């Protein structure tokens, strides 16, 4: 038992979540969060990601089972004790008060200050450190409404960080962020593991999750599948996840493929590695599955004069100078 306590920070035992008894989202969950690991929670909209995270930290009452925090049922802790163990970043992003970054982050010290909210020199040091940690040092005095989405989210994360909790729970922290900001933010979170913290976050962004998470919780068909990102990949889960929506996961490239419509198979042959890669991408974007020996063929040729493409189909062959005209041709051909 003591071994177990050292390893797990969170242990779900037959945990069930949802809203009221008639609306059970997920039931009989048996999951663990280990110390110093980052878990990405994946699932479609409405699958229960938010509800799971909120039930886990006591914001939504669970429908059954137990959530053990450090081996003790979550409800057994006082609110203040909880606040010193678990911090939270909500997916809600609007209606923030007009605070400076420093004031916002300072709120994270609430579980530690006296009734008047007075902060010690140590508190201030921790606030400065948290702001540095999320690389917001130059923005410390800036108001939240004058920050970009990415900066504001980093400030919100610093507020959770300064709460000094062994577990951080974040509900879709990357929801409003563009690709570079998403990547940056998830990398930032994964760095927090170095101080022994555990991070659980929900996201729609499978790519960064696979890249950074130690473990994934994937909500699929009313169950949660748990495992390393690679374990789940081996099980073919990622392809299955979106099978009904015409999206596939390309295991080699590590990204999702999908297009407006399915157009059948196409063969891509020829020389030049770059040329082949980009030609395949073009075909995939249009909705073709690249397969050797297909009737429809693209031959790539490179010469000192430049690249050229020859499309062969039943009607003969046509030559193209660039991928754009090739794509236009393929679209009209159908």
């Amino acid at each position, binding site marked *: 038992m003591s071994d177990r306590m050292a390893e797990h920070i969170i242990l779900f035992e037959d945990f069930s979540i949802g809203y009221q008894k008639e609306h059970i989202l997920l039931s009989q969950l048996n999951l663990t969060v280990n110390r110093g690991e980052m878990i990405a929670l994946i699932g479609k909209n409405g699958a229960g990601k938010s509800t799971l995270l909120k039930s886990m930290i006591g914001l939504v009452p669970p429908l059954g089972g137990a959530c053990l925090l450090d081996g003790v049922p979550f409800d057994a802790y006082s609110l*203040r004790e909880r606040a010193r163990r678990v911090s939270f970043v909500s997916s809600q992003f609007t209606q923030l*008060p007009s*605070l400076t970054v420093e*004031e916002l982050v300072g709120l*994270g010290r609430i*579980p530690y200050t006296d009734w008047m909210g007075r902060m010690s020199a140590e508190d201030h040091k921790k606030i400065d450190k948290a702001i540095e940690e999320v690389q917001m040092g130059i923005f410390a005095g800036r108001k939240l409404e004058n920050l970009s989405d990415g900066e504001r989210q980093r400030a919100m994360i610093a507020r959770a960080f300064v709460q000094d909790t062994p577990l951080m729970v974040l509900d879709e922290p990357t929801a409003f962020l563009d690709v570079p900001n998403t990547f940056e933010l998830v990398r930032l979170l994964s760095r927090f593991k170095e101080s022994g913290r555990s991070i659980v976050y929900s996201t729609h962004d499978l790519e960064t999750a696979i890249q950074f998470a130690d473990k994934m919780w994937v909500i699929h068909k009313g169950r949660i599948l748990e495992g390393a990102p690679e374990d789940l990949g081996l099980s073919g889960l990622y392809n299955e996840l979106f099978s009904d929506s015409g999206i596939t996961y390309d295991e080699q490239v590590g990204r999702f493929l999908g297009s407006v419509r399915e157009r059948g198979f196409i063969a891509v042959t020829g020389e030049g590695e770059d040329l082949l890669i980009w030609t395949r991408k073009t075909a995939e974007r249009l909705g073709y599955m690249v397969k050797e020996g297909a009737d429809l063929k693209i031959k790539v040729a490179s010469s000192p004069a430049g690249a050229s493409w020859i499309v062969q189909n039943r009607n003969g062959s046509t030559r193209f100078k660039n991928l754009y005209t090739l794509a236009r041709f393929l679209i009209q051909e159908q």
Partner: protein
Amino acid sequence: MKVRTRSILIIYLLGLLLIALFLLDIRLGSISITLTEMADHLLGRSRLGEQQLVILTKFRLPRVATALMAGAALPVCGLQMQTIFRNPLAGPYVLGISSGASFGAALVVLGAGATGLVATWSLAVAAWVGAGTVMLLLLFVSYRIKDVMTILILGIMFSSGLAAIISIMQYFSQASALKSFVIWSMGSLGNVTGSQLNIMAWTVLPLLVVTLGFSKVLNGMMLGEEYAVTMGIRIQRTRLIIFATTSMLAGTITAFCGPIGFIGIAVPHIARFLIKRSDHMELIPASMLTGMVVMVFSDMISRLPGTERILPINAVTSLIGIPVVIWLVVMNRKAQSL
């Protein structure tokens, strides 16, 4: 902290300004009582005349005391509502809490007939119950509807509905009761009797101390309830206490001074603008002081120095407060933020 020095300086300056206005306000009036005369009287060097003494202790000091209490209490109500509802446009007047208090007061004043304003606890309690009822309705609605504008509109609907009921009550009431109610509804700092002042002091002053004790909790509520809970704040208890103190503060002031508009909503914003901080430990005292300064100033304006006439205080505070609210709405396009 370096940032805090600004707040302390502002609070200090507001204090000095308040003392100056206070002295000016008690000096002001058709019967001349100079500050030297007052000082001499206090030091026992010479005595004020009988008439001067009566005017000072029965009229001028009570009305300034009333102004000070109203000025301190209403902005605190507004600030608490703005934080709890996370809505910069919240305030006791806008949300209909003052109307609830007015309704309670109307029941007593119009019901009591020709005796005029009732100088007992009944008026205060009726106003608390009225304010508290609107507060509970808002609390109930805000559980279901999170949208800021919807709650504001509901508050306006509540106050319009109550105003309609009050006007029906006025229609059926006796002329003398009607007259005293109409005068009451214009708002006045000068009609507060000695025993009413006592009731005010005994409710307002302790409640103001209580609200100061809730600064930290209010800070924690700024990000909304989910964050508050995860930072260890007991939100049910906090809401209840905040709502109760707001109802009682707004109720008491409304009961004895009549509805005083726009102090509750506007003053916290002036205070925020002055200290440039959002910590309630600094905002609450700054709002109280700013409110007291504005109220004493409004009182001086309402007495139209050099004339025998007195303007309704509600009109004066509205004319001061409304530009602040307009500035808030127009200049601060990100009106979602406090």
